[in-house]
């Protein structure tokens, strides 16, 4: 039947003719690994090799495809992908391949961004009826063929719908995740997903279709929020979540936008938006459940991240003083008092207690929900306070080992869970 829909199919197709032709040639697959890229010519070859070796070693009989969704690289990323060879299979310990190796690369439609890349990969996964898919970052130096197995197997063989990674991180790496994103999502949805922001994760064909149906809005297309969005939707859909240990995550480049300011604006903004959209999912929930974990966990000695605490403290204090008016509108009266007191320059040491941090986060989330100020501005107002929290957290755990650090984060999570009623109260305040 000819109708207005016909136009949308051809005009807004995610697939260029060439891409579609390639996908037809690949045909139905069992496993799909998508690598979104943008100017990663130097590192992507290594990742492509690891993925193919992972396929060859762990899924020799299954139909696999590697899909590179490129955002319009200028440095020959696509050529780098297509030209990679696996080298001598005997030396690489990879068994000889039974099947034709499939590697597809395409320039996805729309502006460069993880959201559009993900949408293309999801659509391709659905078209190829992939049973298990994974997204892998193009700039990973520490990727090993095992990752492919660790990520895909729980989905492919154990019927999990989403598998997020567990990384071995440098000490004090990922503080925004451990102090805000992880505990806040855990307190909200009651699931302990340790790395909800992951750049590398696996999902089932079922979840791919589910996500596609829901559509990816431009807001989800921020460079950071994709992981949060995927995890949230998976929880919303009542799908099975798991996580898998991958080992250290070492990337070649910091994100081009990886300064604290834009990151917090992106990540926390996306997180708050998702929380708002899925309000009905968590307002009544309490406590939290562990998420099934796979893979063999091992220790790696990594150099701790260096933190310039003096400067952080100074920026925290300046920020609180300068932004008093704004913070007053965002934070609860009591919280604001405590924060201002803490920021008092005359105090010798900075101690940012867990509970106060939790309440601050809750106040921000609630103020965001109630739009007491421009949301973008609120995100920026959080930055100095986060700096203070980082300074205090790292200072107090200067000599802590991995286990102690994990225990501290667990305590923080429990504080989040305990104070959830406070959050809900603030959330539901009328304007």
């Amino acid at each position, binding site marked *: 039947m000819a109708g207005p829909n016909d136009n949308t199919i051809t005009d807004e197709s995610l697939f260029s003719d060439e891409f579609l*032709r*390639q996908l*037809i*040639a*690949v*045909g*139905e697959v069992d496993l799909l690994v998508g690598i979104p890229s943008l100017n990663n010519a130097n590192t992507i070859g290594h990742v492509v090799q690891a993925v193919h070796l992972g396929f060859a070693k762990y899924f*020799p*009989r299954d*139909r696999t495809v590697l899909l590179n969704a490129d955002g319009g690289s200028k440095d020959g990323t696509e050529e780098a992908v297509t030209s990679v060879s696996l080298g001598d299979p005997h030396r690489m310990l990879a*068994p*000889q*391949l*039974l*099947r*034709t190796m*499939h590697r597809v690369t395409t320039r996805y439609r729309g502006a460069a961004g993880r959201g559009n890349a993900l949408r293309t990969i999801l659509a391709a996964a659905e078209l190829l009826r992939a049973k298990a898919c994974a997204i892998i970052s193009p700039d990973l130096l520490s990727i090993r063929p095992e990752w492919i197995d660790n990520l895909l197997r729980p989905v492919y063989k154990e019927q999990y719908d989403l598998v997020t990674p567990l990384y071995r991180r440098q000490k004090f790496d990922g503080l925004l995740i451990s102090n805000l994103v992880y505990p806040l999502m855990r307190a909200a949805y009651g699931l302990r997903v340790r790395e909800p922001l992951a750049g590398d994760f696996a999902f089932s064909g079922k979840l791919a279709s589910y996500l596609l149906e829901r559509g990816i809005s431009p807001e989800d297309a921020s460079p950071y929020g994709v992981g949060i969005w995927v995890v949230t939707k998976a929880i919303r859909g009542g799908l099975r979540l798991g996580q898998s240990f991958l080992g250290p995550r070492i990337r070649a480049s910091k994100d081009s936008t990886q300064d604290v300011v834009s990151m917090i604006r992106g990540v926390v903004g996306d997180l708050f938006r998702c929380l708002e959209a899925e309000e009905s999912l968590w307002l009544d929930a309490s406590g939290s459940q562990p998420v099934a974990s796979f893979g063999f966990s091992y220790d790696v000695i990594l150099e701790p991240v260096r933190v310039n605490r003096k400067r952080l403290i100074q920026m925290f204090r300046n920020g609180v003083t300068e932004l008093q008016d704004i913070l007053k509108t965002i934070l609860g009266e009591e919280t604001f008092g405590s924060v201002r007191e803490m920021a008092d320059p005359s105090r010798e040491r900075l101690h940012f207690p867990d509970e106060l941090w939790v309440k601050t986060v809750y106040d921000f989330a609630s103020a965001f929900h109630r739009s007491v100020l421009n949301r973008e501005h609120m995100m920026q107002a959080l930055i100095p306070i986060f700096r203070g929290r980082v300074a205090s957290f790292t200072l107090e755990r200067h000599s802590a080992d991995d286990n102690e650090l994990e225990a501290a984060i667990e305590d923080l999570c429990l504080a989040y869970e305990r104070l959830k009623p406070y959050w809900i109260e603030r959330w539901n305040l009328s304007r």
Partner: protein
Amino acid sequence: MEKPTPETAALPVEPLWYKDAIIYQLHVRSFYDSNADGVGDFRGLVQKLDYIQELGATALWLLPFYPSPLRDDGYDIADYTNVNPAYGTLDDFKTFLTEAHRRKLRVITELVLNHTSDQHSWFREARRSQNDPRRHWYVWSDTDEEYRDARIIFTDTEMSNWAWDPVSKQYYWHRFFSHQPDLNYDNSEVREAVWEVMKFWLEMGVDGFRLDAVPYLVEREGTNCENLPETHAVLQFLRQRLDEHYPDRMFLAEANQWPSDVLAYFSNGDECHMAFHFPLMPRIFMAVKLEDRKPIVEIQEHTPAIPDACQWAIFLRNHDELTLEMVTDEERDYMYDAYTTDPAMRLNVGIRRRLAPLLDGDRKRIELMNGLLMSLPGTPIIYYGDEIGMGDNIFLGDRNGVRTPMQWTGGWTAGFSRSDPERLYSPPVSNELYNPKIVNVDSQSRSEHSLLAWTKRLIRTRKLSRVFSRGKMEFLSPANHRVLAYVRTLGNETVLVVNNLASCAQAVELDLRRFKGAIPTEMSGGSVFPRIGELPYLLTVGSYQFYWFRLRRL
């Protein structure tokens, strides 16, 4: 001994007949029993020659029918120049030969050169004493320490390649079973004797020999005693004699080796005319299971060019297990998992099953596989019963499960014999899917749509053009790897073959620019397809479907 009757030599001299042949492989014992003793015989076979001719085959390959203690299913020959009484007499054989030739069917027999049975008169004489004139027709030694580098082939039953002869107090050499002593080809008397054997059959009118176990003829210290130059010299000697006297007869070498190693058996066209392409067969099965053309393309690309007068013999199934010696470990594991649901289906390094049960009786896949067999380079060999989709009985020990009586009708004895069913040399297949009531020649002859009728049409189509038997092959590489496409060319004749290895319909774009302007005609039905242009030629191929297109510029 009578002179060959004129009929037996009636076929015109046609030196390259084996290149265009379609070989039908059968065992006299299993084909048809004329005297109700439960065992097939030559008289019975003669009655069924019309059937084979109608099928479209142009040559027969008979498994060993010589007198034998049958400890290795006839491959242990006790008399090279006679017929096992169970199958008839030498005269019966001659009649058979005459009748076959009358129907333009060439006859290929088995010749086991490497060894004889220990019941053969040659060996019985040789072991009488160390000084017997026949003594050095076999390989003797005082110690079992010689030729230690030669591997033992039947590791399950044999401890050594040497066996102690208590009568003459020496060890004798055997590469296979200990009751199969190896002939000593260093002895010119043996070479002459073997030539005499060949001459005996050639004189009678036999058109070719399948030479069993050829890599092992000669032994040399410090080598693995396989594929030795001396072995090739023996074969070249026999070939030379053959060419001198019988210009249109043929040697078919059995050497389960990689194509590059088999190449030596063609030599410069002065050794064997044909040789089996062993590694291709499991890869056809693998490709269809994987729905990926890679295994076939890969092995064909690793197959070297052979002399002009030579030809590969290709097959889907034969009287042995589906051998998995010429595949990688990974591929072997995959084949086992994909094609054997029951451990009883495995034997040695292979799978002992017939074509139809291997493919779950799936008509589409059976057709596709036969289509590949008939269109890939080489002379195709059809194993008896596979043209009607016969089943097997994996509970019959060794390879007997694929050697059950040919199923002619739906009766108790499958129309194979008029004896009581209990008397048959082997029970017919009796399971629900493949028993004679379901699968038999009689019922399939009545339908235009039976597998038998279809196979006949396929063979007829193949015979339309020599491009399949003699043409060059070149793979096309469409992006869709589920589609195996190649072009066969001979002179100005071109045939495009497109196979869909997948269980679901596929779209494929073929780069046919060099045939621009040609009009494809589908060969089985004669339908004309759109003219080939500059753009990629788009075809849709149904589940396991294949097309043969004749490309013509009209």
